[in-house]
């Protein structure tokens, strides 16, 4: 009998520690290849850090059960056709309980058609376009501040510094950047700025010489636009090598990546509207503090988190809280909990619109502006320059 004690104890221990833990499957695609690769992988790292921390703490606890998180994910190749196939696969074959969005507004809009069709909850991150939420969706919840708000802060800031600036909009011809720039153009005109030039470029553009020549000819003093990492970094390099006489450059998304520093002098002075920066200090009502998140992230990936990473982690947190509040992983109950969400995490406030004409749109989160500057030792660092209440350094204007 004594011989049996140890094996029985081990079996019982195993049952107690893992037997009650169920698996919860979360599906999403990642752009491991293609133009969206850099930003998408940063978002993935945010998801992964959240999963690892939750699982290490015993999983999500809801309704007396523990749910260990397992991921099912595929490479979408930055391609909307792949997204359509893969989200169907994750719902039908992989039986994902919940979904996270791919990276970018274009891919997310495609994924949303599939997830709504199968009535699956999808938290969208890395996708700011607001139009998708006006289509009567019920299970879509946006973590990013909508695109229409992206460049308003820059124009407000510019108004205080140089109300006579001539503004050029040069932007990627993709759903996200168009959704950002169109309202920004209207806002710039409303503020009394001269919009001297505006042109969209094809998403795979690598040669910006012709557009740069037009910006110079238009006598613009400020350039706003960009799109994602590949085109944004190329545009910044070529603006720098052509020595375009600009006082301010603000680009979407790309300069938020820690990789931006690799551009060297071409990176200096460039501003990015950001969903989150490590310097922002929100008092977290739920989950880790910003400092703890940044520390854990840097320890795991040897690079500081970008706002795409923070958005990825925060998506996990908000879903986790909703499951805990619902006490279940039932879709309807979790959706109700998400509808009722109004919480501040390290990432800032999150609240979703519940009106039918914009259901799921992010209405609680606010953005900041970050600028790449050289510190006293000459090292390139990203500083928060707007809003003034949250600034970590003064805006450098003009940059040359």
């Amino acid at each position, binding site marked *: 009998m004594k011989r049996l004690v140890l094996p029985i104890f081990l079996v019982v221990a195993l049952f107690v520690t893992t037997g009650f833990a169920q698996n919860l499957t979360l599906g999403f695609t990642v752009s*491991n*290849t*293609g*133009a969206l*690769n*850099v930003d998408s992988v940063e978002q993935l790292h945010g998801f992964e850090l959240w999963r690892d921390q939750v699982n290490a703490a015993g999983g999500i606890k809801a309704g007396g059960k523990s749910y260990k998180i397992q991921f099912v994910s595929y490479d979408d*190749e*930055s391609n909307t056709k792949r997204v359509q196939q893969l989200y169907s696969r994750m719902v039908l074959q992989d039986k994902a309980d919940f979904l996270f969005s791919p990276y970018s507004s274009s891919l997310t809009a495609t994924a949303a058609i599939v997830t709504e069709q199968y009535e699956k909850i999808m938290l969208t991150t890395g996708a700011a376009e607001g139009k998708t939420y006006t289509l009567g969706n019920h299970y879509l919840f946006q973590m990013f501040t909508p695109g229409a708000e992206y460049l308003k802060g820059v124009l407000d800031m510019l108004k205080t510094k140089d109300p006579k600036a001539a503004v050029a909009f040069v932007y990627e*011809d993709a759903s996200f950047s168009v959704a950002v720039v169109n309202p920004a153009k209207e806002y710039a005109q409303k503020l009394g700025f001269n919009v001297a030039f505006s*042109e*969209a*470029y*094809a998403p795979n*553009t*690598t*040669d910006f*010489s*012709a*557009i740069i*020549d*037009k910006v*110079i*000819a238009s006598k613009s003093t400020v350039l706003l636009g960009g799109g994602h990492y*590949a085109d944004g*970094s*190329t545009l910044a*390099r070529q603006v720098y*090598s*052509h*020595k*375009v*006489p600009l006082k301010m450059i603000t680009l979407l998304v790309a300069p938020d990546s820690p990789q931006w520093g690799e551009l060297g002098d071409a990176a200096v002075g460039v501003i990015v509207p950001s969903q989150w920066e490590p310097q922002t200090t929100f008092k977290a009502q739920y989950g880790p503090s910003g400092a703890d998140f940044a520390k854990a992230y840097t320890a795991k990936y040897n690079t500081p988190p970008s706002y795409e990473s923070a958005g990825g982690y925060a998506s996990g947190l908000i879903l986790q809280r909703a499951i805990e509040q619902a006490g279940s992983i039932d879709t309807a109950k979790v959706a109700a909990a998400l509808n009722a969400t109004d919480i501040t995490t390290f990432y800032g406030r999150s609240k979703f619109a519940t009106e039918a004409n914009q259901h799921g749109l992010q209405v609680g989160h606010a953005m900041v502006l970050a600028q790449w500057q050289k510190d006293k030792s000459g090292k390139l660092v990203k500083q928060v320059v707007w809003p003034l209440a949250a600034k970590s350094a003064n805006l450098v204007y003009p940059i040359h």
Partner: protein
Amino acid sequence: MSGILASMIDGLLIGSVYGLAAMGLSLIWGVMDVINLTHGSVIALGMFGMYILFAAFPVNAYFLLLPILAAGLLLGLVIYWISVHWVIGRSQLSSLLSTFAVNMMIIGIGTAIWSTSPYNVNFTLRGFTVGDYTFTGNHIAAATAAVIIALALELFLYRTRPGKAIRAVADNREAAELMGISSTMVLALAFAIGIALAASSGALVSTLFPFTILSGAGYQMKSFVVTVLAGLGKPLGALAAGVLLGLLEGAVTPFIAVSWIPLIEFGLFVVVLVAFPKGIFTRATA
């Protein structure tokens, strides 16, 4: 300096590189009657060749063109024996399909190794500034290198025995063989030179813009336009047509959105095919 002039100078510089890329396609097409669909993927391999060599030997990137040309010649011989030799003399569809198959293999292997994420060659030469406009050193160096390579090819074709043999085979293969020229060796050499030219143009592009393994496709399409403009088998004509295409891009872009350029280029392609089927440089002497 006016915006149009600056834009045309930019067009002239990049046009030389288009011309060099098209020379490879034009030579193979003219001499062998083969439409080489590995052209785009070889341009992309040239880009990655430059990337790898520059990472290993961070010297002036333009010196690295010599090993890339040499590697291009070797690669050309390999592709010739794998996919072209067996279909010479058959219908154009056979060579079109066999080179397309090799193209897909190169892209597949390239995607497995480098993915389709963008790469950069971080090499910068100082440019010069006129008023508000700056012309980068890389653009000037790439255009100069393209012209030097084109002139070297012209000298090779007209002043050396193997070059004359290539022209002889292009003119009349049977007559050339009767004169003791081994057409197989000559065709292999012509194909290898065409591939080396494509690879070198890719290497030059890599010093200007970011690239992926799929980047060659756009330059392949431009090469078709340039080849049709110039007429087949005229290396310097291809260079001139490339420069013309670049100038056209430069002259038009100040007035229309850049995204309309492909429409204009392919409109021109169709017009030239219909009105000047032997190329715009042929009609004047015909």
